[in-house]
């Protein structure tokens, strides 16, 4: 990023610090590569651009933001001065905490720098994976995607500049299978913050999605009702994210939209349950060093041993509600507002072996891969869509597959029903919206868990 532009903006912010209670500027830029392959075609593109600038002013009552992606020093200097001239400063109703001061810089640690591997080599790896998938039994098509992105964020206040550079990698493999009457699919996904080491596949990953895809051709619809279930880390993560992630984003408290507010400090889940949001999780796809308001990333215990400890905040929510500040102010891009958002949200591991958890179920379902979820913080409902689950009878997985499955239920019931928590741990790669928009990279996960849910 152009240092003279950063210096110019910092000078302007310094000029108005006595008049304007809170004013900061954020510069975003990114570079990256997307590769998409299917059975017949290949596509190469740059990552969607998120280059832009936001001037954020709190006038004592509300935020006024001025955003532009015309990143030219003369233009932005004039843009900032004009914006500041229009702002009418009010008697402060709320005082926002200042951003972390001083000059700081952060960068993702990677083992294999994507830039050190040629595009040809990356294509060769992906083509070899495609070849293995499309030669599989009954495979009619595949989707292979690879994305690498380097995002730079420069957070400028009158008394400091914080710079972070995040490297994110994601990689998806999908096998579509058919015997002529309908198509089913299974997928594998991997990624996180880091380098190309993140796209290494575990043994058997490709064979497994082809085999499962074929098995899904014979899958059944489950009879609606309540079931004992074991969730993989992926399913546990979806539950944590939808149940006690969105529901504790405290901008929802400002709007009276989250029932969890009434349960702060109370027991809300089984004592085996601890849920954490941690933007500083090494390698997490939702990790960052500093949030979009200049707060240094740190872990937040949302639930500890069944007790609801605290919600997630952005500056405005923290100031208005008088809640402790967490580093969860995030925006989709320079073009969107900051909301309270999750980062990496997960169940804390327990003490049980995953195999023992499955063995403990007499009659239930092993929920394996997720598709999506949706929050309902006010009703405290939950919707999680699951691609497939396997029947468990007398502690053993049978050959019956159910697909798709929908978990619905009342969040406190679901969390109080958690009866076993595994000692394993894994987080996945995801994109999270607030309602049906405002998409940001996140991860969710945890260990295997056993609980009781309504399936349909």
């Amino acid at each position, binding site marked *: 990023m152009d240092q003279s532009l950063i210096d110019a903006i910092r000078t302007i912010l310094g000029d108005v610090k006595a008049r304007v209670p809170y004013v900061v500027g954020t510069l975003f830029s990114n570079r990256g590569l997307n590769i998409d392959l299917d059975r017949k075609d290949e596509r190469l593109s740059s990552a969607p651009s998120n280059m832009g600038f936001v001037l954020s002013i709190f006038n004592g009552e509300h935020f006024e*933001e001025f955003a532009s992606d*015309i990143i030219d020093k003369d233009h932005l200097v004039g843009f900032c001065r004009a914006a500041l001239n229009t702002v009418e400063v009010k008697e402060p109703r709320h005082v926002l905490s200042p951003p972390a001061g001083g000059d700081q810089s952060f960068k993702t640690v990677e083992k294999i720098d994507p830039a050190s591997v040629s595009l040809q080599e990356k294509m060769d790896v992906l083509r070899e994976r495609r070849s293995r998938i499309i030669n599989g039994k009954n495979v009619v098509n595949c989707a292979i995607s690879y994305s690498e992105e380097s995002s730079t964020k420069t957070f400028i206040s009158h008394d400091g500049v914080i710079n972070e550079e995040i490297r994110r990698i994601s990689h998806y493999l999908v096998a579509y299978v058919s015997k002529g009457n309908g198509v089913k699919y299974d997928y594998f996904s991997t990624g996180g913050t880091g380098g190309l080491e993140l796209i290494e596949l575990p043994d058997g990953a490709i064979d497994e999605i082809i085999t499962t895809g074929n098995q899904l051709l014979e899958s059944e619809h489950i009879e609606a009702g309540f079931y004992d279930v074991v969730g993989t880390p992926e399913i546990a993560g979806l539950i944590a994210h939808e149940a006690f992630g969105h529901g504790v984003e405290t901008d929802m408290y*400002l709007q009276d939209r989250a029932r969890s507010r009434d349960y702060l400090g109370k027991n809300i889940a089984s004592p085996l349950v601890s849920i954490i949001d941690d933007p500083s999780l090494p390698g997490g796809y939702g990790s960052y060093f500093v949030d979009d308001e200049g707060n240094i990333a740190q872990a937040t215990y949302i639930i500890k041993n069944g007790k609801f400890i605290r919600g997630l905040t952005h500056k405005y929510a923290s100031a208005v509600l008088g809640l402790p500040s967490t580093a969860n102010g995030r925006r989709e891009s320079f073009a969107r507002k900051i909301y309270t958002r999750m980062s990496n949200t997960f169940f804390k591991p327990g003490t049980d072996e995953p195999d023992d958890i499955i063995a403990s179920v007499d009659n239930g379902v092993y929920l394996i891969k997720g598709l999506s979820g949706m929050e309902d913080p006010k009703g405290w409902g939950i919707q999680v869509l699951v691609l497939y689950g396997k029947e468990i009878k007398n502690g053993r997985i049978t050959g019956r597959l159910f697909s798709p499955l929908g978990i619905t239920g009342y969040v406190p019931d679901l969390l109080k029903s958690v009866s076993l928590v595994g000692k394993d741990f894994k987080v996945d790669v995801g994109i999270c919206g607030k309602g049906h928009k405002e998409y940001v990279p996140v991860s969710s996960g945890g260990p295997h868990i056993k609980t009781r849910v309504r399936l349909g």
Partner: protein
Amino acid sequence: MMKNLADKIAAHGFADFKVIEVKSNENQLYLLKDRIESKRTIESQYYDITVYADHKSNDEMLRGEYNFIYKPSTDLKFYLEQAKFACSLIKNRYYGLVRTANFSKVELLDPRLENAEAIGIDLTDTIYQSVRDANVRLSSAEIYLKRSEVTLMTSTGIELSKLKDLIEVEITLIGKKGKKEQEMNFHLKRRRIEDLRLQDRIEEHMRHTVNMLNVKVPSSGKADVVFNASDVYGLMSPIIFHSSGKAKDQGMSRFSPNDRIVGQSKNDFTLKTSGIIPFGLYSDPFDDDGIPGQEHTIIDHGIFKKHWTTKRYADYLGVEPTGAFKNLIIEPPPNSVFANDNYYEIVQFSDLSPDPITGDLVAEIRFGYRVQKNKKTPVKGGSVGCNIFEALQNAYFSSDNTFEGHYLGPKTVVLKDLSISGQ
């Protein structure tokens, strides 16, 4: 700027190129209860560039391509060098760019949006004046007003421009009775203010919000389910996917021309894609390929007629391109009469996203009614499950039409005997 950019791209020796310039201005307003939480203005200008390089292999013409977003402050030369190398690695089947500049006249601008700030104030007033009920209050609202100018220029001589407006309003209402509270959130997206029918929509959702205070969880079992117009586009997404030229080309489509999509003549609906509905959300004078907005019948009285195709897949399949799928039009069969007094009428799902490939649907009921004879009981929770391809074999369409931004057709669609997972 466009000409200058085109000259620089051409100088790199690409076989073809396509540049889409997007300039926009947006005003955003966020209301929190009785006050403003945030105001935002956004200016944007970027170029979506695709370049193509051709290769010959055994007398077969193959095509490499690379797509990138260029912003004027970045290094175009770097991107073009990267693009040239990327194109050399890709050897897809050849397809051409559109060669004739053509466009459809379709209204996409609301003159009132020229003063976006005043419109924001008007909409705010409408919201505050409409939410007047002892049991319902405004939780929050978000208003987005955007005008964009899009210019397409290609190496084949096409140069076309269009202007379009977009208005989005998201509102959350809270209903309260004693200590009990429920929320109703809804989102409207239109091209002109009057199509929002904001006051009517708020009043309609206020009634639901009050009823939501007495909800029950639905019972498990089989039931007929009434979907409202705002869900029909999502409901039809598996049909839209399988009727695409891409799905056909890749061996994924369930449909072939003249296939009967539904087995019973009483369900012989007609399905069209239209890029020319005035103020349609997906209406378009021309698409990203330069294909003019047009209307095509995809399913005619239950019979599949043709796949919709972008230029690329039209070339692969050897057919005329229809352009991308745009607004959805459904014309009901003439005698589609739903005669049942025992069903679920769903006002809102948490997320209605059928799997476009398999057609499987599981969606949580955010709010709706169980209708038994003339009695309506509010319901919330549980889920509706079905396979869309199977469910459409037994569908009913109301005869009253409505326009929902990207959908023109029956106000309600009924799917019979769906699985309800509840108590």
